[in-house]
């Protein structure tokens, strides 16, 4: 592990309680901890950890522009583009900036030096402080489909000399990989339902592929069956703790309360859970 632990909270299935866990972890870790809200399509950690924005930066990705006086319409750039963001049908190619991943390949392969890059805004990164917790939030612009550049920007703002809780988006696709990659360990939040288990399996597979150690938190325990527990036993995955399926918890969260603020009796689970995650990470990286 390189410096303080940076631990991601992911889930597979959406709505299992990633933000509930992430905000409570940040609260128990207290002053100076960073909470990276990488669910940039719908960031919500600041609904719970409220504070003034201290810094706000635009996120942009490079996209090509064509100098039509130099372009001879050879189409090399369109043939090279793996994202189908350029189309050559005679004359200067058409550019579809919304499909561009900003790899810069077209600029390099152009034999006439007819392409240069310009910046296309895709989102914002904001840093706010909420009672000592540094919340770094990414927000994708409306209408933009590509989340990873904004997630990378959030992570680039994180300091390695302080611990970080990374609130990942749901699923196991590119945005999740972008959020989770490089974390020292991952806590997978699931619920004891068939959907929860199905997507937990995918999430476990993802963390194994990325070679990041993981452990599980079961939320809304009592709402389903014991198959998640059984799966974790068979796979040798640590279940850090459970949170019960209780109406009073849902009500507190709906009011915008952090779980451990509303119910301090759960603090010890998060404190122990964090220590276990750090131990798992330390062991893995030893």
């Amino acid at each position, binding site marked *: 592990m390189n410096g303080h632990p940076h631990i991601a909270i992911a889930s597979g299935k959406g709505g299992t309680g990633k933000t509930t866990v992430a905000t409570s972890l940040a609260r128990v870790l207290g002053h100076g901890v960073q909470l990276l809200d990488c669910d940039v399509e719908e960031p919500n950690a600041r609904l719970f950890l409220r504070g003034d924005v201290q810094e706000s930066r635009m996120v942009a990705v490079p996209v090509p522009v064509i100098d039509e006086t130099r372009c001879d319409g050879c189409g090399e750039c*369109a043939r090279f583009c793996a994202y*189908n963001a350029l*189309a050559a*049908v*005679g004359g200067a190619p*058409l550019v579809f900036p*919304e*499909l561009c991943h900003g790899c810069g390949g077209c600029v390099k392969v152009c034999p006439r030096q007819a392409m240069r890059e310009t910046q296309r805004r895709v989102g914002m990164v904001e840093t706010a402080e909420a009672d000592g917790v540094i919340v770094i939030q990414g927000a994708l612009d409306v209408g933009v489909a590509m989340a990873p550049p904004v997630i990378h920007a959030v992570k680039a703002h994180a300091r390695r000399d302080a611990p970080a809780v990374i609130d990942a988006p749901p699923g196991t696709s590119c945005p999740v990989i972008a959020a989770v990659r490089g974390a020292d360990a991952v806590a997978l939040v699931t619920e004891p339902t068939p959907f929860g288990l199905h997507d937990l399996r995918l999430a476990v597979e993802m963390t194994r592929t990325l070679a990041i150690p993981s452990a599980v938190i079961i939320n809304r325990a009592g709402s389903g069956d014991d198959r998640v527990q059984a799966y974790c036993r068979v796979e040798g995955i640590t279940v850090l703790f459970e949170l019960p399926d209780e109406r009073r918890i849902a009500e507190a969260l709906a009011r915008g309360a952090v779980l451990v603020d509303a119910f301090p009796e759960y603090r010890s689970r998060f404190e122990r859970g964090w220590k276990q995650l750090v131990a798992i990470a330390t062991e893995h990286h030893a």
Partner: protein
Amino acid sequence: MKIAFTTTGTTLHAPLDPRFGRAARFLVYDTDTRAAGVIDNAQQLDAAQGAGIQAAQLVARAGVGAVVTGHCGPKAFRVLAAAGIAVYTTDAATVAEALERHHSGALTALGGADVEGHWV
């Protein structure tokens, strides 16, 4: 003139595929020689994005003057328009039926995309 019909099959009697970018194949019919050929579009079926753009370049390279399909999105339309290819949409069940309607002048060329893009 060559016309590209989107299809799931390989003959004139095959169903017309309502999709353009992710059509299985294009049946290219030459109205002068009455010869038909098939262009496979399988590569675009797996594309994460930009299938319409690639499909449009594919039919442009085949030298068609018109495309007959079910629907056409904005990005594909932009490429087809840049290539000077007219786009006709129809709910004809088969390629032969679409060709028949085209011959009889029952189809009118689109002035722009008739459906929204899948990205943006």
